[in-house]
Structure formats: C-alpha cells, structure tokens
C-alpha cells in the first residue's frame, strides 16, 4: 500500500512534539531520536490499524510511549543510569540566556517517577486532554489527574517555588546569572 500523502504529512507534523516527548521520557537527545525513528517505523508498518479521522498525534504518542516502556523493561539497568547521563548531556551544552532556569527545570523533571513525568508532559506541554493522556498511558482519567497533581507538587518542592508565586531568594541570583530581569 502506498503511503497516503496526507498520512505522511500528518506523521511529519507530529515529529517535533514526538521528539520533545521522547526527550522528556528518556532524557537523552540521541536516544530520543532513535525512539522516534523506531516509532515511525512501527507506525508505518501498522498504518492499516490507524483509523482515519482519529487523532494521528495521539496514535503516534501511544506507540512511542509503549515502545519506550517495553524498552525500559528490557534495558532497565541502562535506563536507571539515565539521570546521570542526562545531567552530563546537559552540562556539555553551552548555557545561554534563560538556560539556567531551563536546565534546573529539566533536572527536576528527571527526578520524577516516569509515570508522573509522562502524565505531566502529555497534559501540560503536549496539549492532550486528561482523557487523551489516559488513553495514551492505558490508565484511568483519575489516575492521570492524580499523577499530574503529584508531579506538580514535587516539582514545586524541587524548584523551591512557593505559593507566593516567586522563586524565592534565588530570584536575584538567577536574574544576574541569566542576564534576565523578568520575573
């Protein structure tokens, strides 16, 4: 079966956010790109199981997520080292304006349990509804909600963001470090 051009375009249009999701899952750009590539190969090999008119992006995210989870089980040891390698990858990148804050956020996100992290990213960044995120993760909507809440609470603790809405005593230091003076 020839690949429908609209299918091809829809798949390509999802690649940037698939990569962002994959990087947030595994914390390593090279591995994330391999994960996206494997996802695309699987998706296109099973394109007949995609129902036209349904959400292509959610379908691809589900494949990527399931593939990552099965790899995770296979390569548990390697993945457990992920956080350390993740930090190293980040350190090797030059830091630009605003990058300090971004790095701290990535590091905090990497400390969350995988199921909380994926729920938060799907809902808070990928733009999926709680229902869609629940379908992607194969769990109940209530489970996604509670994972997102726990993820936010933990991140606020790790980043020391309090209910005043300020980042605290580090704010000035941060502004100096990043050269930014926005809040």
């Amino acid at each position, binding site marked *: 079966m*020839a690949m429908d051009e609209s299918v091809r375009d829809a798949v390509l249009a999802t690649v940037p956010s698939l990569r962002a999701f994959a990087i947030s899952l595994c914390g390593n750009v090279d591995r994330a790109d391999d994960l996206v590539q494997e996802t695309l190969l699987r998706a296109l090999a099973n394109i007949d199981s995609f129902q036209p008119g349904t959400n292509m992006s959610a379908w691809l995210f589900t494949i990527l997520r399931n593939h990552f989870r099965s790899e995770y089980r296979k390569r548990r040891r390697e993945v457990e080292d992920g956080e350390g390698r993740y930090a190293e990858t980040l350190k090797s990148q030059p830091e630009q304006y605003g990058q300090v804050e*971004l790095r701290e956020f990535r590091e905090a996100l990497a400390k969350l349990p995988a199921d909380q992290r994926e729920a938060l*990213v799907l809902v808070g960044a990928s733009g999926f509804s709680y229902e869609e995120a629940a379908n992607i993760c194969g769990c109940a909507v209530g489970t996604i909600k509670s994972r997102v809440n726990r993820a936010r609470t933990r991140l606020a603790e790790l980043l020391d*963001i309090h209910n005043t809405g300020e980042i605290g005593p580090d704010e000035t230091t941060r502004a100096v470090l990043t050269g930014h003076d926005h809040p």
Partner: protein
Amino acid sequence: MNERKPSGADDPMETASTRSKKPQAKPAKLSRDVQARLGQQLRAMYDDVVGQGVPDRFTELLNRLEADKDKDSR
C-alpha cells in the same frame, strides 16, 4: 487548611510528622501562580525542542519508506 506557616515550611520534621498522620492525604493544593509558573517552564522546555522542527533524518526516512512502497506496489 491551606494556610502555610512561613517558619514551618522549611522544617523537614514538621513535614514528616504531617505526612505520618495522613499518609493518604492529598498534597496541599498549589496556587494558580505556582501552577502557571511550572506550566510556563514546562512549555519552555518542550517548545525548545519543538522549535527545532523536523530533523533531516526523519524526512529522509519517510521519503525512503515511500520510495520502497512505490516500488513494492509496481
């Protein structure tokens, strides 16, 4: 119940004892400010990658697959 004691916020003992009393208690609800701030950082991180667009390897991959399929169907 959402009130916070500024002096107690950094006291790990207080947190621990609060938790042990209510092991299943929901975490204190974060204010909209905090949620907005977290959301903003999360999206900044995500959009940083999204803004990189589609790396060539993926366009090439799809082109190659398309070419293979065209060959197969002939």
